[in-house]
């Protein structure tokens, strides 16, 4: 039963109260910089330790201190990790956003607030349940220091919630112990504050909430990690040695995580030297320039950025494409255009990346759905960049990148070897093998390269962004230009075979409708498919994992009368690429677009698709074929 249904059922008896076990949404409304983040995360983790999946999301402003920030936790025994929409329990700790926060609560839902000062009835709603806790009063009576009051107030409300929701207090105690390992003196005050909140609830708030957390074993082996951290780990495992970056939300934590993991795994124990180099560049132009210089010279290199960074890098991306230099660009997408919504999520850089730079270009894009694939695809992108000698874009977004997400444990096969691509060795050059830097010897469009310093007299060549012949000699001759441009297309066709292929899943019943989606839409789409099937709306589905598209994409579209293309941008960018690259009749591809900066929800997808499919299903009945 979803929340509104539950509310309707409950309203028959008394003041409606949403009742749910392990399936609800709690949202914390806080002030940025007030220390709420760690308390809220502690809360989310405690539920996870009770064996119940959670899906938390930070909704934060572009600000250091003072502006509103929210933390939304979806408790979901069913494992629906997308954003649900609506709130069952609001923990309203920010007077600035009070009205908006109250309005978001589902009928029959709950409001927990600081009742130190009385709140006028007009500022409340009659159809919600109130849980007042005089947090400021309690904190003031216990702590002298103002900062301590603020920080421990947060832990205190975690204590209240623990009691009200039935979370095991031992779990919180254990998590606090882990969190402050090595800083033992911090454990006691936190634990005290937590118990204060817990006792307050036990003594004064009996049966205030009908939302419960009950121990299950529904998390299994899964891990809880942010996409940015997972992608950084993928770069470590994939052998990246050079990282150049410029701080930009939401990608900064990726470079910082790479620094952290390199510190853990890449420092030579004997000498104390680093088997990596990280440069915080002066801008994104320099970041990509450093990556290209390193790639040209045989080191695996990457940069992490977001939309505005892609715009700045575009000229260099064209150089790497045309001069055929390996590079990995991780684009943690945010809301555009321009500065756009820097702390909100979107999938709106597809066209900017797929065709980045002037002239005719096409680039390889990978679309991970979660941190697991962020890890896998980051490592794969380093192989692909060297195999294909071209920029590879890892297209993640803020929703995956900056939120902890439950995903399969990361895997690595120790027998795996890096694919360094076609690099001619000193021995091959010495043996007199013909070296044409841009010569396609075996028909896959990929030429061989040499690294600087390889051989005393053979294999040197001049890399340039201008036209050249197959032996890298400057040329303005039309046939030389055409040769390279056609070869680059051939190389792109080779790329289509090497990139992760789409994931296709059939509907429970035969259907003429399909849906295509990608990236962070995945969890909400999985949930939407379940809901639609219950409404007898059946969809075959295809999750795109890379561009160029493999042949299965065209086949999938051809097999359906209509295909919904679900995206988190305004213009249907993937849809445009499908039409452009596969020559699809636009009428067959129905855009479903969500782009207000919040993560797409199953509710949105269900509403958008169900009405249109039902409409379509009516037609045969009218024409007399049915009944």
């Amino acid at each position, binding site marked *: 039963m979803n929340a509104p249904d539950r509310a309707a059922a409950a309203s028959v008896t008394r003041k409606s109260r949403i009742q749910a076990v392990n399936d609800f949404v709690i949202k914390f409304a806080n002030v940025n910089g007030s220390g709420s983040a760690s308390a809220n995360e502690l809360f989310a983790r405690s539920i996870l330790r009770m064996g119940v999946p959670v899906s938390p999301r930070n909704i934060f402003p572009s600000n250091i201190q003072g502006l509103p920030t929210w933390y939304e936790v979806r408790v979901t025994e069913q494992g629906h990790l997308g954003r649900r929409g609506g709130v069952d329990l609001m923990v309203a700790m920010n007077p600035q956003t009070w009205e908006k926060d109250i309005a978001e609560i589902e009928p029959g839902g709950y409001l927990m607030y600081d009742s130190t000062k009385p709140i006028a009835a007009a500022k409340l709603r009659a159809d919600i349940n109130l849980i007042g806790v005089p947090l400021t009063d309690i904190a003031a009576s216990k702590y002298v220091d103002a900062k301590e009051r603020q920080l421990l107030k947060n832990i205190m409300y975690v204590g209240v919630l623990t009691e009200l929701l039935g979370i095991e207090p031992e779990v919180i105690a254990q998590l606090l112990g882990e969190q402050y390992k090595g800083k033992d003196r911090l454990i006691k005050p936190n634990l005290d504050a937590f118990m204060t909140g817990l006792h307050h609830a036990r003594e004064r708030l009996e049966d205030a909430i009908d939302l419960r957390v009950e121990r299950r074993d529904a*998390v299994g*082996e899964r*891990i*809880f990690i942010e996409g940015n951290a997972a992608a950084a*780990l993928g770069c*470590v*495992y994939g*052998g990246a*040695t*050079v990282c*150049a970056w410029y701080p930009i939300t939401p990608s900064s934590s990726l470079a910082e995580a790479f620094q952290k993991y390199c510190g853990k*795994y*890449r420092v*030579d124990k004997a*000498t104390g*030297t*680093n*088997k*990596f*180099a*990280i*440069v915080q*560049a*002066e*801008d994104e132009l*320099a970041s*990509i*320039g*450093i*990556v*290209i*210089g*390193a*790639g*040209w*010279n*045989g*080191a695996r*290199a990457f940069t992490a950025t977001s939309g505005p960074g892609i715009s700045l890098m575009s000229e*260099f991306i064209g150089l790497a494409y045309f001069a055929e230099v390996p590079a990995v660009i991780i684009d943690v997408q945010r809301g555009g255009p321009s500065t756009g919504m820097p702390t909100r999520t979107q999938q709106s850089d597809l066209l900017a990346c797929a065709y980045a730079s002037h002239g005719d270009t096409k680039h390889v894009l990978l679309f991970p759905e979660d941190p697991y694939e962020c890890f896998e695809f980051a490592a794969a992108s380093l192989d692909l960049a060297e195999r294909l000698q071209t920029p590879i874009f890892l297209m993640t977004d803020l929703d995956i990148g900056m939120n902890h997400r439950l995903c399969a*444990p*990361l*895997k*690595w096969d*120790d027998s*795996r070897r*890096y694919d360094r691509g076609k690099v001619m060795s000193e021995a091959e050059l010495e043996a007199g093998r013909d070296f044409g830097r841009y010569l396609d010897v075996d028909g896959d469009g990929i030429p061989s390269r040499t*690294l*600087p*310093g390889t051989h*005393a*007299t053979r294999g*040197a060549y*001049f*890399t*340039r*962004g*201008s036209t050249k012949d197959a032996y890298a000699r*400057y040329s303005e*001759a039309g046939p030389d230009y055409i040769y390279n441009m056609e070869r680059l297309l051939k190389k792109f066709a080779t790329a289509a075979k090497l990139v992760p292929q789409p994931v296709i899943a059939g509907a429970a019943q035969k259907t003429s409708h399909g849906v295509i989606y990608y990236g962070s839409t995945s969890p909400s789409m999985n949930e939407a498919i379940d809901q639609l099937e219950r409404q007898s709306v059946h969809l075959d589905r295809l999750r795109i994992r890379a561009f160029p598209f493999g042949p299965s994409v065209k086949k999938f579209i051809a097999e359906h009368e209509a295909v919904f293309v679900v995206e988190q941008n305004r213009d249907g960018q993937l849809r445009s690429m499908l039409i452009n690259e596969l020559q699809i009749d636009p009428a067959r591809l129905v855009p479903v677009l969500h782009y207000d900066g919040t993560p797409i929800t199953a509710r949105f997808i269900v509403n958008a698709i169900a009405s249109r499919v039902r409409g379509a299903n009516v037609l045969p009945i009218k024409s007399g074929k049915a009944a």
Partner: protein
Amino acid sequence: MTYLAKPKLRHPTLPANRLGYTRRDYEGKISTLCAGCGHDAISAAIVQACWELAIEPHRVAKLSGIGCSSKTPDYFLGASHGFNSVHGRMPSVLTGANLANRDLLYLGVSGDGDSASIGLGQFAHLIRRGVNMTYIVENNGVYGLTKGQFSATADQGSKSKRGVVNRDAPIDMVAIALQLGVTYVARSFSGDKEQLVPLIMGALSHRGAALIDVLSPCVAFNNHLGSTKSYDYVREHNDAVNRLDFMPHREVIGADYAPGEVIEVTQHDGSRLRLRKLDKGYDAGDRLAAINHIQLHQARGEIVTGLLYIDPEADDLHDHLATSATPLNKLTETDLCPGAAALRALNAELR
């Protein structure tokens, strides 16, 4: 055909350096620049310096941006890898290349438009990071390939070929580099090979960021009366503070000079620089005095040349980043991949 191959003739009497290479082994393709271009003289000086230093040609990586000067790496060191990158952005490409393999010599060649106009930002950050390289600015004050527009190094009051007078203040690459912490900086003139060759040798032997600003007249667009970057103007206003003799570490020095007239500097690699002072008061070890001297003379329309500052104990970006002695591009899976067991342990921490 839009490139010119050079005939491979070897004169039997061409002298060989200690590795057995002749000057020919350090040459590149035939230049496509204008006859008399200062840049070609700089290319010849680079060839001479590399030959004298007996550098293995393939151990040099030469990088450039876009423009006349940036074309020149094709015209020297034909056995070296070259990279003609993006306008004004060679510094970042060079930085990345250097990070990937610390064992090669890096030579950046750029122009005044490439480095002082479009590329000033990257130039500044390359210098302040102390990237181990030699950076030569072939400075003529104009854009050649687009036919004679002023660049950011054009002097105030300097007149273009079309008669336009430049009103903007010039950017002095040397003064800026000094302020940004450059550890080897010189200014020279493409018409003075005797001065230039040892300066290049000293720069190639220097560990850290080395900059040589070489005035290199543009015969097509900036060699007329009223230009401050013409052959005649530079010759008349050249104010050399010292002459440099470069001595590889094995050579014994035996010349006699009066005390105070000669200073010797030993660099990291053991090479020695002998500075014969022309201006007795000039101290190439004093950064602030160097900036002061250059700007005082610049205001008088004089061009101060020579080795203007050196810190022989400089460190470089690799020192700052504590990178491994093995070049990063030589590291393998064994060095780089933490392996499955480490990942299993990490997974356990993430629950």
